[in-house]
């Protein structure tokens, strides 16, 4: 396996980590104004991800940095091409990041309520837009022979990518609601359970609709064949099992299963892309690939060594932090945020 392939896999891993982790904290942010009826309930919900959200967001930053380092042309074409969508997402993320820290710094219901809606919008927008963005990577966007995106903002809005956006939005929200069933107590726990049960069916239906549309709108499955292999099938089976697991209140397993759905769906998209990283709808030969978009072999080699040393360390201490703060959050305890 060459270094280009290794880095393609590594970036896929970073996106899996990002969607798995930040997926549930986007979901928690989206559910915040609806699940929490009074201030301390909302605080408990925020505190359930208080320790983690910032570290989770670094997965996105690292994925972006890794794209820049390993496939600079991918980074350049994608980020300049999807310009306005990304500006909107960044505005949402800026406001969201500040909101967690600032919300409880004043004892004022109006202040609290405003920040709660900032957290909602700040979580809703990226949860939707990431689905739109990833769908467009594989569906293809107009790219010329100089790797320049030649479309505009509206090119990105098509039925396939919009369904992809709704799918990621619903899936992350479901993932977040199940996370909350593992982290909250009493009334909040009951509400989270109810929401998770309600969200499962729409999330599943939209996800399958997205897959079916994928047969028509992308070459992902024609590439993978009529039998697409174990990865997408496992993703499908996992989301199906979630409904049952929620009914019998095995939320821990349900969380594992939404996690598997997110991870394996992401892997499916990356498998469909390979060896391309962005499909050109203008001319297939102008697609960006892991070869024409990549850094030099030397840089890839240096970065591989760096990743080999530091990724395991990061995983270890981040897992450790989840272990330390594994306890449920109750409205009756001391709340930092």
């Amino acid at each position, binding site marked *: 396996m060459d270094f280009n392939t290794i880095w393609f896999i590594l970036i896929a891993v970073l996106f899996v980590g990002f969607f798995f982790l930040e997926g549930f904290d986007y979901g928690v942010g989206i559910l915040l104004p609806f699940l929490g009826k009074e201030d301390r309930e909302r605080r408990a919900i925020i*505190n359930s991800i208080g320790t983690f959200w910032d570290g989770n967001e670094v997965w996105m930053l690292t994925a972006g940095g890794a794209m820049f380092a*390993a496939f600079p042309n991918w980074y*350049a074409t994608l980020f*300049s091409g999807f310009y306005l969508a990304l500006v909107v997402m960044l*505005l949402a993320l800026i*406001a969201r990041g500040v909101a967690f820290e600032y919300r409880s710094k*004043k004892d004022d219901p109006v202040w609290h309520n405003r920040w709660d809606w900032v957290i909602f919008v700040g979580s809703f927008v990226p949860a939707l837009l990431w689905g739109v963005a990833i769908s467009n990577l594989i569906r293809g966007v107009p790219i010329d022979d100089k790797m320049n995106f030649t479309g505009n903002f509206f090119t990105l809005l098509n039925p396939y990518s919009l369904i992809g956006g709704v799918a990621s939005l619903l899936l992350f929200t479901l993932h977040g609601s199940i996370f909350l069933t593992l982290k909250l107590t009493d009334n909040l726990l009951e509400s989270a359970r109810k929401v998770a049960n309600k969200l499962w069916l729409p999330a599943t239906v939209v996800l399958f609709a997205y897959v079916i549309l994928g047969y028509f709108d992308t070459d992902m499955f024609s590439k993978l064949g009529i039998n697409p292999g174990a990865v997408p099938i496992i993703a499908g089976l996992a989301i199906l099992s979630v409904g049952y697991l929620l009914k019998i209140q095995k939320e821990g397993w349900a969380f594992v299963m939404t996690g598997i759905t997110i991870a394996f769906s992401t892997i499916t998209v990356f498998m469909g892309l390979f060896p391309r990283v962005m499909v050109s709808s203008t001319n297939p030969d102008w697609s960006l690939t892991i070869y024409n978009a990549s850094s*030099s072999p030397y840089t890839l080699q240096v970065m591989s060594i760096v990743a080999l040393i530091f990724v395991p360390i990061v995983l270890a201490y981040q897992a450790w932090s989840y272990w330390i*703060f594994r306890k449920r959050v109750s409205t009756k305890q*001391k709340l930092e945020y």
Partner: protein
Amino acid sequence: MDALTLARWQFAIVTVYHFFFVPITLGLSIAVAIMQTAYYRTGNEAYKKMTKFWGKLFLINFAIGVATGIVQEFQFGMNWSQYSRFMGDIFGAPLAIEALLAFFMESTFLGIWIFGWERVPKKFHLASIWLVAIGSNLSAIWILAANSFMQQPVGYAIRNGRAEMTDFFAIITNGHLWVQFPHVFFGAVATAGFLILAISAFQLVKKEKHEVFKKSFKFGAVYALVGSLLVVLVGHTQAQYMVKVQPMKMAAAEALWDSENPAAMSLFTFGDEKNRKDVFAIKIPGALSFLAYNKFSGEVKGINNLQKEAEQKFGPGDYVPPIAISYWTFRIMVGAGFLMLLIALLTTIQAFKSKFEFKPLWYKIVFWSLFLPVIANSTGWLFTELARQPWTVFGLFQTADSVSNTVTAGEVAFSLIAYTLIYAVLMVIMIGLMIKFANRNIDEIEKEEAEVDNSVLTKA
């Protein structure tokens, strides 16, 4: 305005804005870690109060630093895609390493620190704030490694129409990095020092001789003094380095039109930038040579000579950065730096006299000095980036070629307005919170925190 001009304005605004908060994060994280170490060692409650008080202000600042940092990571691809294609092979690596090595560390351990009081063993809790401080400062090293390449390219070859890395160690041992990082680091220490001084002064005016703020004031004074002194000393080394690797930058800083030997240093120049001549100037003979070489002779090259050299090397073109703005940003930075040093020195001497006593006027001076490092940080960056123009990567790649060719002026105008608005709103909110928390009665912090929780517990 065209897309390039708008993109440059946007870069300047979001980057200078981001760097209001970064130095406070770098300096204050270490300060809080030192305070907590003092508490851990002595068990003195005053140090615990200090840790909590300054820690809260640190967090309010940190949040906005992190949030505005996301734009920094993405804007190269978004607005400078041609730069990203040309430089990605070199520039992407330090950015990715910064995220992997530094951002994960500071964010994860900050979470542990905020939520870990009384929940993790004291030793781990103390270690976590140190890891936050180390993580933040590591991130500065990596981003400055990237910036240093733009000032002084090393360890590369031009291949396949772009700059490719040939020697990773050359990039991280770049001489420019190791004069620039200490300068940024001690600037950050000074910034945090003056912030601590200013707020302590404010509290001491309200309630004289409060033990915790007397301690904080003394700490802030020493911290500001160490930072200011070293930032000035390193700055001198840096200027000497600049004469060697970026002579045009030095000529611009001094508005030195023609080469001189010995070279005079300008105290005040009112010049005619178009015709490249002085209208009115006060100069100290030989002083620029001294600044450059530590002796009163030696040639310092002028703008006209360097322009000619550049034309020979790179072909016809304008290789002169904007002179007036380079000249004045440099002077404002240096002036603010020396003023900081003076104020920190006088304050420290007075603070460690047997009787701790300051005149109200001095408290006022100390309070408003809070803005000196902010001004010096901003003008310093404006200088170092603007006086490198027309290059983004010195001698290799120009700003006009760097901008995204597919992003329209209208799109950049939209993002420029949107970022500016959200940043302005956040600034107002952040300053409001800073004032609120700077104003807190330190003896009631623990009571406040405890009461909230007790009331809830009894209700339940």
